[in-house]
């Protein structure tokens, strides 16, 4: 159990409470009444030193974290939703710059939520990756 996420301040606290989210350096803020997640660039998130590019797993992990936190924020559930499956399409190279992520709950039932995630860098119309996941809520 963790404290319910009732507002954007408690969302930031919840992000900091997840060791892996802290390791990546995930942060959040409000944007048009919705949580906006962002990942300031850090050298240890590089997965290809030649390009250079963010590790695909960093982009995936960032979006997966964002989706969990978004569901917790939207539903004010106290238990951390359990991921059932996760599917990601990589559309562009993640450049060594800040990465943004936003989520949309497509359908939330009593037990399962379906969440769509998008990650982008300087232009939200040119996504770096899109992903979808199912979460078990209880």
């Amino acid at each position, binding site marked *: 159990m963790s404290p319910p996420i009732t507002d954007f301040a408690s969302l930031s606290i919840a992000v900091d409470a997840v060791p892996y989210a802290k390791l990546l350096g995930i942060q959040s803020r409000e944007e048009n009444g919705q949580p906006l997640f962002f990942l300031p660039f850090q050298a240890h998130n590089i997965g290809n030193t030649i390009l250079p590019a963010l590790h695909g797993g960093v982009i*995936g992990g960032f979006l*997966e974290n964002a989706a969990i936190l978004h569901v917790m924020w939207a539903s004010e559930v106290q238990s951390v939703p359990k991921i059932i499956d*996760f599917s990601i399409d990589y559309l562009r190279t993640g450049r060594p710059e800040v990465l943004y992520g936003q989520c949309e709950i497509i359908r939330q039932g009593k037990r399962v939520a379906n969440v769509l995630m998008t990650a982008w860098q300087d232009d939200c119309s040119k996504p770096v990756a899109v992903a979808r996941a199912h979460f078990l809520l209880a």
Partner: protein
Amino acid sequence: MSEKKPIASPALFKQISDWFMTLPHCQVLGFKFGDAHYGCMTVCLPFKDELIGNPATRVIHGGVVTSLVDSTSAGAIYTMLTELEAIATLDLRLDYLRPAKPDFPIYCTAECYKLTKQIAFTRATAYQDDINDPVAYSVGTFMRNSVREVPS
């Protein structure tokens, strides 16, 4: 697989797998090379507290498994190549079958089961003590000869 075929180009594979293990994000997670033969690679991820996704249960975050599967699947492709080329993940799907036990390493064994001129198809299993009781199962596709994209 009944018989383990040797790696297509051991020198190329060593160069790539050594490079993989030194990549900043692979180092921060703590990937360790396990085993490889033609079409197949195993990587080990020792447990550490920084990788926890749920502080209450101390279960490793699914995103860490995504990184492990992505890198190992890419590595499996290089066991089949004879010349250096860049590859890029097109997509990856993971089914999380059970939570990983805290304090124990996670292994990932990935296989490239189909290699075409342009695309590599992979599948991977993440497990702890028994590959028949996996933590996660994944399928992925990779683009071969990917070049750096110039953002327009």
